[in-house]
């Protein structure tokens, strides 16, 4: 299943709804293009909704980290919402769970951007 991405505004925060697999190839490329596009539009408060993403490989993890760093470098914030169990486990064993701000409630996540 390829990756699909749409985005919507929640106040000053851009919520990106992702579905599918973030893996080597088109999935990772689409995530990169989406985040870079938002930064080009000066949208620097980004919340990735991963509720419908049940598979990420090492390339996808690398793309999440790359996006996180790119947003931080522009004084923005990239946070994660609604991790599936597999994705949460993956971020935990790679110690990235402590790097990203992770939320289970969208309103709480949006408010956290300040």
């Amino acid at each position, binding site marked *: 299943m390829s990756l699909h991405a749409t985005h919507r505004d929640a106040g000053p925060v851009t919520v990106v709804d992702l579905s599918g697999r973030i*893996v*080597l*190839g088109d999935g990772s490329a689409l995530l990169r293009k989406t985040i870079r596009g938002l930064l080009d539009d000066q949208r620097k408060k980004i919340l990735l909704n991963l509720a419908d993403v049940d598979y990420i*490989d*090492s*390339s996808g*993890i*690398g*793309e999440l*980290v*790359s996006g*996180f*760093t790119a947003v931080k470098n522009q004084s923005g914030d990239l946070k994660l919402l609604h991790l599936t*169990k*597999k994705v949460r*486990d*993956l971020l935990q*064993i*790679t*110690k*990235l769970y402590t*790097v990203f701000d992770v939320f289970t409630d969208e309103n709480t996540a949006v408010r956290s951007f300040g």
Partner: protein
Amino acid sequence: MASDTKHLEITLETQVESVNLAEEMCLRVAEAAGFGEDDCYRIGMSVREGVINAFHYGNKERRDKKIHLAVDLTADKMIIHVLDEGAGFKLSDVPDPLAEENLLSTSGRGIFLMRAFMDEFDVVSGRTGGAEIVMSKKLPAPGSTSPNGQGGQSATPQQEA
């Protein structure tokens, strides 16, 4: 090779599509061998990472090089070999992705994930002169059940590295 071992071998092109193809092939073997959903996920992910490693680091994405994938199904485990045509590497030279200075690296987690998800993992010098990843997963015990009603272990990944 023992007579009761089933052997499957395929030569893959050095291209992104080979990663999905290898994953799908090994998932079918794993499902047929009786692995449950969680173990199939781990095996599929490990095969992906092995082939990504061969594609990117081993063969340097060169289309004139091949990736050799072999699967052995013995009486007690599924063994996967991923061989590239690169220069080979030593496991001891691979940076630890959990080290503080590497946490924000955008690459270098594939070996770690294979070690975490499989029961046995090693990298040896292959017949092509490239690296050969050899990894295995024990077959589920006959009659064992997992939460999804199939053979397998718990869903929580095991961290070995």
